[in-house]
């Protein structure tokens, strides 16, 4: 790179105002006396897809410079990005070079569809991106540009501009950039971002709030396990009563007693198992849902989330569709069984199976939900309670055995209840996955005293159960067949 052209790459999502930012940069450059050229490839990416804008600024004394329209890998002076994974995309394409590139990136995440639809946790690693940028950029600035914009009542384009202007890579002053902005809000966002970048430049590291220390019971346990025990106990008491809390503690303690607390792998296995135990014991039935939906802190959270202002009135509507199954779940086992039998024969029930709108902060709706919440008092006699508890017992029993015999397997088994989640069809699929894994992997493994490789098979099965909601991958793991090649047009040719 033998010239002094300033090359600016803007990475953004369609519809975020990247074009606005590009035009601001162009105006600022022109006002500062530079010849400038900028271009973009918006197209359909304007519909929330990933997109980029590219600006080249000629040196002030060389207005006849031929300016490029396409960024050159390794030859970009400054990258400004509205979103962390878009920064990663720029990095992966080779634009960031330790010799030239300053990276100004928002830490905000706008999750891509593929990250969102994962049945477990599909999020891209934030830490990897930050580490990669810190390693590969000449200078890097990370700040939550989206939040700064929101705090100042403006759009991310304004804060991106402020951060870009202050990062030291532009050949004109921060003030010259600022002068381009017409309205107060954009300027406020610009200023806040510019200040934040200047603070980072002056050497102050980003300060993260220290985790608040909690006073916890179970003092003798390792900290992670202690915390999970504490939360789990609270959850079960909140869910049912003190006796249920003690029930949780006694179950957990049985697991803890089975291991050596100095073995960190064993502690990890039990910690995850206790976490799953707590979540499982506090399974979501209609009483639980109704209870959670009528709590003061919930309405406070909604008021906060919708930014309710003084003088406005809030009405909250719930979308409920109770089916016979959900009703049978909470009623005493004998009645529940009869309802299920009727449901399976296609019997009809009044009020059930239809979408209901319930005004949870309305007079009737609220009373109805409180009444439903009160069903928790008969929960212990209910059909689902019996089913869940016996499944928990079987799992705990297998887990205790595994903790003794094969720690790897126990680690997987502790995680297994993670596949049981969701409601209605989703829950049914989860239960099916759970049952399949119990029947085809856990029970046989136990019988065979955990031969080599079975722990991996269990882990694979859990991963597969969370990989797609058709269970195609899970079935492949269970039956031991290799999945079909993923090229849809290719037919498998069998040799005859």
């Amino acid at each position: 790179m033998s010239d002094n052209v300033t090359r600016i790459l803007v990475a953004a999502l369609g519809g975020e105002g990247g074009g606005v930012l590009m035009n601001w940069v162009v105006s600022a450059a022109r006002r500062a006396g530079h010849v400038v050229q900028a271009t973009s490839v918006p197209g359909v990416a304007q519909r929330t897809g990933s997109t980029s804008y590219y600006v080249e600024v000629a040196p002030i004394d060389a207005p006849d410079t031929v300016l490029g329209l396409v960024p050159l890998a390794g030859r970009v002076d400054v990258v400004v990005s509205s979103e962390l994974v878009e920064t990663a995309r720029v990095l992966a394409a080779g634009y960031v070079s330790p010799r030239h590139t300053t990276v100004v990136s928002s830490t905000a995440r706008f999750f891509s569809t593929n990250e969102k639809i994962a049945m477990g946790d599909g999020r891209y690693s934030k830490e990897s991106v930050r580490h990669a940028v810190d390693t590969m950029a000449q200078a890097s600035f990370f700040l939550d540009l989206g939040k700064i914009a929101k705090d100042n009542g403006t759009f991310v384009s304004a804060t991106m501009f402020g951060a870009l202007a202050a990062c030291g890579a532009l050949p004109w002053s921060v003030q010259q950039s600022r002068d381009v902005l017409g309205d107060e809000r954009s300027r406020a966002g610009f200023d806040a971002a510019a200040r934040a970048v200047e603070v980072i430049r002056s050497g102050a590291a980003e300060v993260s709030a220290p985790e608040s220390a909690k006073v916890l019971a179970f003092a003798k346990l390792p900290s992670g396990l202690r915390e999970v025990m504490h939360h789990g106990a609270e959850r079960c008491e909140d869910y049912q009563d003190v006796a249920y809390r003690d029930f949780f503690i006694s179950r957990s303690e049985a697991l803890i007693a089975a291991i050596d607390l100095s073995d960190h792998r064993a502690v990890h296995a039990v910690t995850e198992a206790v976490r799953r135990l707590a979540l499982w014991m506090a399974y979501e039935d209609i009483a639980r849902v109704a209870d959670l939906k009528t709590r003061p802190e919930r309405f406070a959270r909604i008021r906060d989330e919708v930014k309710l202002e003084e003088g406005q009135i809030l009405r909250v509507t719930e979308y409920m569709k109770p089916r016979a199954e959900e009703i049978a779940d909470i009623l005493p086992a004998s009645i529940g069984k009869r309802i299920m039998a009727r449901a399976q024969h296609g019997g009809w029930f009044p009020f059930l199976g239809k979408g209901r709108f319930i005004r949870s902060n309305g007079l009737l709706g609220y009373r109805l939900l409180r009444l439903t919440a009160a069903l928790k008092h008969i929960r212990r006699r209910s059909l689902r309670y019996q089913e869940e508890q016996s499944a928990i017992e079987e799992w705990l029993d297998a887990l205790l055995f595994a903790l003794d015999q094969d720690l790897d397997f126990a680690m997987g088994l502790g995680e297994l209840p993670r596949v049981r989640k969701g409601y209605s069809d989703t829950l049914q699929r989860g239960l099916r996955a759970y049952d399949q894994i119990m029947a085809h992997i856990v029970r046989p493994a136990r019988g065979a005293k955990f031969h080599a490789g079975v722990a991996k098979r269990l882990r694979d099965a859990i991963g597969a159960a969370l990989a797609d909601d058709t269970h195609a991958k899970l079935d492949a793991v269970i039956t031991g067949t290799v999945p079909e090649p993923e090229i849809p047009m290719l037919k498998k040719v069998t040799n005859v």
Partner: protein
Amino acid sequence: MEVSFAKEIQKLKLGDGDKFEGEGILAVTKALLQSGVTYVGGYQGSPISHLIDVMVQAAPEMADLGVYVEACTNEASAAAMLGASVMYPARGAVAWKSIVGTNVAADALSNLASPGVMGGALIVLGEDYGEGSSVIQERSHAYAMKSTLWLMDPRPNLPTIVNMVERSFELSEASNTPVMMELRIRACHVQGTFETKDNVAAKVSMKEVLAEPAPHEYERLAHPPVTFGHERKKSGERMQAARGFIAEHELNEVFAGQQRDVGLIVQGGLYNSLMRALNELGLADAEGNSDIPIYVLNVVYPLVPDEILEFASDKRAVLVLEEGQPEYIEQEIGTILRRAGSDAVLAGKDVLPMAGEYKAEVIAEGLGRFLRRHLPQVGNRLEDAAYADEVAVLKAQAADLLKAPVPPRPPNFCTGCPERPFFAALKLTQQEIGPVHYSADIGCHAFATFAPFNFGNSILGYGMSLASNASVASFQEKRPLAVMGDGGFWHNGLLSGVTSRLLNGGDGVLVIMKNGYTSATGTQEVISSPDKDLRLASAEKSATHGETTIEDALKGVGVKWLRTVHTYKVSKMRDTLLDAFKTPFGGLKVIVAEGECQLERQRRIKPIRAKALKNGERVVRQRFGVDEDTCTGDHSCMRLSGCPTLTIKPAADPLKTDPVAYVDNGCVGCGLCGELAHAATLCPSFWRADIVSNPNLLDRLGNWARRTFTGWAGA
């Protein structure tokens, strides 16, 4: 229309010596006016949508100048519009996205080129090739050659582009041939400046009307037997005239360089990238002074053999830099050199890749290979390999540090898009009847080919979905499904698809997304766009609800099974789809999936609400949310919706490890979340908040009662 061009319209009025600052495609628009056009038309599509949009919005200003503007219903109609220049001394220009638009226009182009033109005719092609492209990767060049149309490919800076627009009209008139100008995506969107001239009023125009039509001249019809003569003229006198004009006016440029043994021949559009590459290799300075001579083809068809032979005359080798395949220019240059017995060695696609965008990195590598072979004293000193290595190392290091591939982020339906609920309903339908053959089409609905929907077995072109499964129906147990937008329906689908299926009595299910506009290209209007009154009356409701042009047309051609369903009624849509797949009725079944484009609706609602709030009127705003306490983090709602605002966040619950669902503040309260919670029996975690501003007495009374009897919950 999505964007307002009020400011840009002012730029179109700049006069002699003023400075235009703005986008490339708008500079072209200004250049058309400086050239004295009589009429302008086109069909929208990235990257030339802005040309059409600004002209349509500026129609009153254009009328003052006497310029007629037509928003054509497809590219064939735009190309046919140039017919005005065949018999009249009227300059005209049309624009579209290429290659796809040129394909559609091909019939009219052949018929236009054969008789040739009297008034200058220019076709502005948004060459949608390379990064950011949304279409198949083909070259418009082939059309220039086969129909004998001249093709401009100017250097991508505004003064050159503007100059070439003006010259194109002159070239067209001098050679009686329509001219195409290809502008790559980045050139269309480039921000630059040029010195403007006064607009020129046309001799024949809306203001200067002709009393009499042109006389009947059989010679000017694309009809036998004169077409045989036309063919000879195209390759004979018209070609000669064009070459003469190009040479005389120096439309192509030669930049001298000290290394006279070799030379570079480059398409004008690639010039800046070539300069970047030369600069990177240390063979040119930043101002574009190159060590190696360069011959820039601002006109890539026809080539001027004399210029090429002169450029090559003292050289051992020339390298042709030509983007895309096949290498038409290189082949023609090869013929020119060979016929003349030139000694110069020809290089091109042997050192450069056959396919793909010619970015500076790619060009630098090719230059390295070329120079090592043909100018070793320079080539062997080059550091192109060092640069390539550097880039490879950067990419490898990034991949290593990032640990996992960066997740893709293709475009998606907008927040509140009325097409999303249709695809959720289709997903639910397929859960009951299993997958069906799905013929996809061009338009926003093609986003359903991406996650979380992953629909589609084929895409065959704009408005072609129904036609593309005509034969599929014959060998499928289940009826095939075709989906097209109202844009595609009017562009092509009604004739190619619907009438053909009806004529043959074929079975099948067609869904037409009636959102009221060609939304993917910037919400331009179609014949069935709701008119102003309807939009005004609809206020916050879907304005396409009362618009029945599509249904009327379908009934008119004889569709018997026709349903119109609002897309947000997910259960009803699913039931209608099930009915369409299961009904014993054997003919074509059409479901009009109605729901106005959210971009247009929001644009209308925002001022209405702002005004009402300002006047202290009662306004209800809705948005949705998810209770994270009851969300189990299985994300099945997202697999059905894909809404940008329905996203994930870390669970506040310390026991939950998977992220929970969360609706961010971009929510426009479209209602899909709630509909899905019901239709799919998803989960009880969704809530809807109605936020009442300026509550009336009844609201306040109700609120008081709620507070009194439920305590805090009344809020």
